[in-house]
């Protein structure tokens, strides 16, 4: 079924009887050409692009719970391509371009909203680093602007300009950055994949991999064995758990990242903003909630919940940046499990097992990467070669000393 304004009107006038399921609930087949493990944003996007762009068939996506229940359903919805390093920027710019055409592509309004992202700076050194980054972005075909303090004031007059411990000196802006209705991304990809024949199988947990002579044969699941020619794993925070089933140790740790939303408020913040002297970033959703977050809790965790110190740290940042939010109320907080890699950058690569592919290490930046991650993983699965924007995302980069360390923090995941 194609969605459109006309369809909405027609259904409204006929009692909404014609709407069909957004995706089917098929029973698993005995075997597929491709199995995608993980029904989060990246897995769903992979299945979608595998079917749509790479014209592959006999694809199943296995999800242990309900689709979209991982980080695509619990993030702060930001999209941007304001990366510094050569290994990253082309990929994230590719992702941003995919976002820009996504809704027409998968016929679902995910509310891609390019209202701009602004990274504030408070020191000359930060300004220099942002200048380097902004130039790198433009050289890679992205957009960037360096704003003065007065430019920032014109945009957001209510920020703390006059009583700040760390005064705002300006910001790096990317106008094409913005936000997307996160759940809708999962549903749009799911619906698009389903329409192209992908079997989305929920409540189907992969419990093991069957291999023979270093080649994958299929997966053991809570709903029985399913054969596959190729298996792609895209399970984010569960990466180490899943890959442990083939005794692979990964260059990553799982950490909890909390995110927050306030009660609904009349519009005050148009775009996305990050504080440069503390851990706080914020945007305002179309429903009016301030959606904000900060740093990860900092310890290994699979608990999908965090603790108060980070909540307080984030709100301290919020108050330091915009003292008006003292009287806004935090409505809800949640935690997601981040696959924090050793250099803060992801991996989309083959594994030591033939036919088994891995996608992970997204840290807390996986949401914005969703389209390109799916596209590039589909490319790898279908062609056995890395997509041209994802050539750096290899396992062996650590052995070779080719880390992609945007923050320069080294092999300590909780600092990325």
């Amino acid at each position, binding site marked *: 079924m194609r969605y459109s304004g006309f369809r909405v009107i027609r259904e409204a006038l006929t009692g909404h009887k014609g709407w069909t399921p957004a995706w089917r609930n098929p029973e698993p087949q005995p075997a597929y050409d491709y199995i995608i493990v993980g029904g989060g944003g990246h897995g769903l996007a992979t299945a979608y692009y595998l079917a749509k762009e790479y014209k592959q068939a006999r694809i199943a996506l296995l999800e242990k719970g309900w689709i979209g229940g991982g980080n695509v359903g619990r993030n702060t919805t930001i999209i941007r391509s304001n990366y510094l390093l050569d290994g990253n920027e082309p990929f994230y710019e590719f992702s941003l371009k995919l976002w820009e055409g996504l809704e027409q592509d998968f016929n679902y309004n995910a509310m891609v909203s390019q209202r701009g992202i602004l990274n504030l700076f408070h020191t000359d050194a930060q300004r220099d680093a942002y200048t380097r980054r902004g130039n790198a972005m433009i050289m890679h075909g992205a957009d960037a602007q360096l704003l003065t303090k007065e430019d920032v004031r014109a945009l957001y007059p209510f920020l703390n300009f006059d009583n700040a411990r760390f005064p705002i000196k300006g910001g790096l802006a990317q106008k094409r950055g913005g936000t997307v209705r996160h759940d809708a991304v999962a549903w749009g990809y799911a619906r698009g994949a389903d329409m192209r024949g992908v079997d989305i199988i929920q409540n189907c947990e992969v419990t093991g991999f069957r291999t023979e002579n270093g080649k994958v044969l299929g997966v053991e699941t809570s709903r029985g064995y399913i054969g596959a020619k190729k298996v792609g794993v895209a399970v984010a925070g569960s990466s180490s758990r899943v890959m442990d089933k083939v005794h692979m140790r990964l260059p990553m740790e799982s950490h909890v990242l909390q995110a927050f939303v306030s009660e609904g408020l009349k519009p005050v913040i148009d775009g996305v903003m990050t504080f440069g002297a503390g851990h706080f970033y914020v945007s305002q959703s179309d429903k009016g909630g301030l959606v904000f977050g900060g740093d990860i809790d900092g310890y*290994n965790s699979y608990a999908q919940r965090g*603790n108060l110190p980070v909540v307080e740290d984030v709100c301290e940042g919020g108050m330091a940046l915009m003292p008006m939010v003292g009287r806004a109320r935090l409505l809800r907080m949640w935690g997601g499990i981040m696959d924090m890699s050793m250099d803060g950058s992801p991996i989309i690569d083959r594994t030591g097992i033939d036919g088994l592919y891995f996608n992970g290490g997204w840290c807390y930046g996986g949401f914005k990467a969703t389209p390109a991650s799916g596209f590039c993983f589909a490319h790898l699965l279908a062609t056995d070669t890395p997509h041209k924007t994802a050539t750096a995302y290899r396992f062996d980069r650590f052995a070779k000393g080719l880390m992609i360390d945007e923050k320069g923090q080294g092999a300590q995941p909780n600092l990325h």
Partner: protein
Amino acid sequence: MIINHPLLGPRDSQEFVYLGDAALMNRPDGMAEGALAAFIDFAYLRDNPAGLHRELWYHEQGDRSWLVVTRNTVTHEITTVELARDVARKAGRSK
């Protein structure tokens, strides 16, 4: 979270800085054969278990001791806390 410091008793985890897996104490010998491969494994690969995890915490705002904390990464329950120096010695680390 509360870490039951072996010397100071229960202390809030806010006073601590987290490093990671306690395997980080098993630093290879940099002068040995095959040091490069050993260091790559040491520095970059992690078990990252969902369950019991032995990990290094530093009491930065307290007595500046490094601790080995055994904590469940699913429930956050902490079962053992030891001074890292004692653990390291037991593991054969010396000079």
